[in-house]
């Protein structure tokens, strides 16, 4: 893309129009995953392992099959064989093979006439287990005597001599860290742990599946990526990808957790066996036990600093437990850890460790928040001990354009310095703290992502436009697409309808993840609109009898490009589309690519924490998010992403955690005890949108969805540690942990 078509003066972008799906969502008529029905529909239910690790000796389905109203029972035997790689891992997770690998692992499923019948029938499936030793803690899973969970899973990256539960290894960095530490006035090294948390989307996984013996199927599901679902379901069922049409429902939150499949292949298998449509909806307990939480981590971070606040060297070791399957995002943790800082000497190591827990799934900037917790805590300790201002120290070391990033490449235009300056100048940063309060700050980094993207844009005869995108709208992206199309075409926002197309009506699209939607689908929408504009200019040129390059597009009209082109009245879009059938046929534009210019994103959070020294209870009286959005297309939804990320981070920092018992069973698989923040827990969350345009997008967009959850864990840890007068090294900083730390400190 030519950068000279970068716009900076906008008509529609930056305004805050009503979202196109607003009416549906406030009246209850928006159709989410569980809201679909089909004639003759059955209901499915899954039988799950109560054991953390057990060999499946025998499955007896006879009683369930004999129950009135039961139409199909499936086990692993009803799925494709011979899969490898990630297809194999997903299949193993979706339906256990020889071994149940975690509490909640699916072992069998049943479809019946009603949801109650299906639940009753599931209880009649008898499974004989041979219970095996289990491990759920990341450090314990690496110890020599830890039970081996899936021998042979490790890939070639793992150094000799590691426990077989270590399945992948990462190392990166540059410079000479030993020399860097030697040059420091103060070196601090500490260890940190974080517990797994869940994305906590309010809508449980749900789908409606229909598959025939002819290998043709339809799937409706709540997902962040229906092409991903199509590809994986087809592989797991042994059918052709194109024969399965997948439609994404309205999605009730995902945050990364709906980037994979769980019940969808099972519902398809049941449907194929029963020859009827099958609806499946997870319970909340199933969501928490069996869908992807984050990794839990154990981390060591060492940073050297001179008295003036210059970081001389940094080193980190990051161990991530990602459940019983490879894929914990330890390389992201390692690569993000020191990215905010321009470092001459840096080294980071990551371990992917398997344990008897559910397969981790992406959660908003996967892996990065934990790294920030460890790194930014050590920086805060250095600031405290060297008596330096936390923002000034970060400014002094901040990555800028041209900095060689800790993970390799050189940064292009980035906005970290601007974010830090905005933090320094924000009234929050200089506001007086009350008794018992502490203030923390933290930087955060996320790569952002492009990904395979297809967009199709069609003009209607009345001059209005329909845009088909393939990235499910999780948080208002249809409004952003319509704004970008309207800006490009020069027609009102209201004249554009954006639809999330199904897999049969648009080319392949990567999942709505990696903060890629506004960037990549947005870029593709702009390019598709530009293609349509080119065709409309061509029609105008033909009508006027002048060369195509003598026509330009201005404010929604074709106009002669200059006085030499001729003197013609502007042709409005609706004038061109009105007779497009007779001037060459329907006009549309489309764009397919894998854009590579996502543009990294930095943010800085400021938070005040109040700690009750007698109970260890923390409250958050004030919170400010500052983040570089490149260009905010719909500022209200950008603010919403910032606020949502902060709120999730507050939950992660203070109270959310997976609690496993000695028996390896999840103890808190309900919202009562998996404690996400409620309205009365939070203050208003102030936001500052910094705009340093991304050179890789025509309008300068950077993804904003993920970076917002990176700084909170560290910022809150720094605030709590300063408020309590004792450093917290483990998340969540629940009241019992804080009170224990206070007592240990005397």
């Amino acid at each position, binding site marked *: 893309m030519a950068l000279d078509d970068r716009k900076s003066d906008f008509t529609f972008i930056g305004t805050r129009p009503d979202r196109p799906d607003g009416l549906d969502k406030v009246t209850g008529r928006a159709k989410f995953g569980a809201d679909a029905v089909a004639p003759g529909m059955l209901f499915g239910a899954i039988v799950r392992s109560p054991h953390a690790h057990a060999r499946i000796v025998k499955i007896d389905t006879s009683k369930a099959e004999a129950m009135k109203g039961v139409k199909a029972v499936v086990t692993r035997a009803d799925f494709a064989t011979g899969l490898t790689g990630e297809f194999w891992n997903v299949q193993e997770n979706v339906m256990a093979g020889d071994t149940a690998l975690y509490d909640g692992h699916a072992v069998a499923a049943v479809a019946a006439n009603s949801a109650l019948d299906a639940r009753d029938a599931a209880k009649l499936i008898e499974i004989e287990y041979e219970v095996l030793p289990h491990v759920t803690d990341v450090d314990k899973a690496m110890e020599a005597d830890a039970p081996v969970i899936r021998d042979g899973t490790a890939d070639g990256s793992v150094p000799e001599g590691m426990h077989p539960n270590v399945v992948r290894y990462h190392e990166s960095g540059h410079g000479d860290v030993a020399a860097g530490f030697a040059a420091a006035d103060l070196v601090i090294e500490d260890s940190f742990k974080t517990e797994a948390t869940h994305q906590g989307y309010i809508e449980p996984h749900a789908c409606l599946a229909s598959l025939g013996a002819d290998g043709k199927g339809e799937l409706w599901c709540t997902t962040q990526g229906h092409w991903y679902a199509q590809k994986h379901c087809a592989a797991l069922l042994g059918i052709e990808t194109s024969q399965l049409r997948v439609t994404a429902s309205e999605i009730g939150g995902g945050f990364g957790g709906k980037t994979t499949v769980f019940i969808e292949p099972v519902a398809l298998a049941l449907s194929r066996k029963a020859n009827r449509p099958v609806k499946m909806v997870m319970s909340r307990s199933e969501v928490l036990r069996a869908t992807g939480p984050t990794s839990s981590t154990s981390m060591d971070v060492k940073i050297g600093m001179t008295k003036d606040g210059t970081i001389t060297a940094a080193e980190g070791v990051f161990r991530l437990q990602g459940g019983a399957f490879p894929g914990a995002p330890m390389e992201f943790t390692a690569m993000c850890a020191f990215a905010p800082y321009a470092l001459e000497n840096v080294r980071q190591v990551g371990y992917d460790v398997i344990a008897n827990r559910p397969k981790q799934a992406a959660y908003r900037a996967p892996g990065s928040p934990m790294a920030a917790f460890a790194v930014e805590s050590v920086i805060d300790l250095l600031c405290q001990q060297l008596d330096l201002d936390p923002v000034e120290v970060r400014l002094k070391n901040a990555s800028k354009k041209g900095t060689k990033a800790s993970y390799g490449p050189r940064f292009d235009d980035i906005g970290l310095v601007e974010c830090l300056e905005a933090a320094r100048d924000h009234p929050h940063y200089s506001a007086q703290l009350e008794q018992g309060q502490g203030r923390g700050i933290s930087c955060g980094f996320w790569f952002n992502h492009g990904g395979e993207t297809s967009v199709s844009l069609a003009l209607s005869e009345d001059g209005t436009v329909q845009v088909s995108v393939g990235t499910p709208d999780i948080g208002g992206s249809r409004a952003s697409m319509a704004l970008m199309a309207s800006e490009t075409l020069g027609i009102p926002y209201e004249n554009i309808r954006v639809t999330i197309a199904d897999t049969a009506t648009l080319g392949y699209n990567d999942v709505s993840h990696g903060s890629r939607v506004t960037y990549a689908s947005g870029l593709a929408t702009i390019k598709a609109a530009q293609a349509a504009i080119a065709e409309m200019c061509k029609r105008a040129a033909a009508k006027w009898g002048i060369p195509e390059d003598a026509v330009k597009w201005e404010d929604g009209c074709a106009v002669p490009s200059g006085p030499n082109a001729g003197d013609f009245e502007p042709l409005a879009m609706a004038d061109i589309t009105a007779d497009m059938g007779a001037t060459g046929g329907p006009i549309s534009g489309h764009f397919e690519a894998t854009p590579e210019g996502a543009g990294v994103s930095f943010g800085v959070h400021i938070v005040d924490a109040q700690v009750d020294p*007698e109970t260890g209870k923390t409250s958050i009286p004030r919170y400010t998010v500052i983040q570089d959005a490149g260009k905010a297309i719909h500022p209200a939804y950008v603010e919403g992403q910032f606020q949502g990320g902060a709120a999730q981070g507050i939950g992660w920092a203070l109270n959310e955690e997976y609690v496993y018992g000695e028996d390896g069973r999840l103890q808190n698989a309900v919202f009562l005890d998996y404690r996400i923040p*409620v309205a009365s827990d939070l203050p208003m969350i102030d936001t500052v949108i910094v705009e340093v345009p991304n050179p890789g997008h025509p309008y300068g967009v950077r993804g904003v969805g993920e970076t917002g959850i990176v700084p909170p864990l560290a910022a809150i840890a720094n605030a709590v540690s300063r408020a309590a007068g004792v450093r917290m090294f483990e998340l969540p900083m629940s009241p019992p942990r804080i009170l224990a730390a206070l007592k240990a400190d005397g």
Partner: protein
Amino acid sequence: MNYHSPASFAEASALAANVDGVTRFLAGGTDVLVQLRADIVTPDTLIDIKMIDGVSDIIQNDDGSWTLGVAVTGAEMTEHAGLSQDWPGVVEAMDLVGSTQVQGRATLTGNLCNGSPAADSVPAMVAAGVTVTVTSADGSREVAVEKVPTGPGRTSLAKGELVSAVNIPARGDNAGDAYLRFIPRTEMDIAVVGVAVSLRLDGDIVTEARVCLGAVAPTVLLVQDCADAINGSTLDDAALDALAVAASAACNPITDKRGTVEFRTDVAGVLAKRAAKIAYARANGETVKGDHA
């Protein structure tokens, strides 16, 4: 599961006495339905008592005592000015149970008969000296609230018995009560520790103190040592410290997903002091806000 909605307590108890399997009474349903949904308890017989006359009444008797129907919800209690004036601790304790939505359904009786040691309203009722009327085919008897729970999920009620009324004593003069609980969030959690204090003042001297702890033992604890620590005092620092020590000493908690033994033991003492101060101020005629906004 069979669902019944009898028109009288006699009919309800006869039903319960004559069926096999698991029987549950349905008042607000905020525990019964959760257990049903989660496959923890699927009753064979579910007896909805809300069609019985008078179960939603809040009545102040001539002697100043209160009689509450067994289906009176938390919201109805909170909205009742007279009851809130007399027994703010009991009303606030009930109000702390669950969300606004749960308050629209949940009842004192259900909170009691669910048998959870962490039930918020139970310590407050015990501190207040509340009794329940238990009805069966043999007639009715009055039982102190502290005699109802016998362990987690268990009560002393026999087959065919059900609670038919909640009896709250007259408050009388110069008296106040308070209930505080510890939860990690501001709302929606189960108590990690709960402490209720009810007391009367003779001048500025504490008398008739009753202190009850929740979530620190298999059942709520009515702790005489706590009462002794503050009775006869002006609730000075020494008395408060003695109260805290007595409260912590009485704890026999477990470590679970909600808290540790050490945490519960420490915080019981902290909350006992804080609750006692509120009860004392209320007995002095001050209006003090409780834990809830």
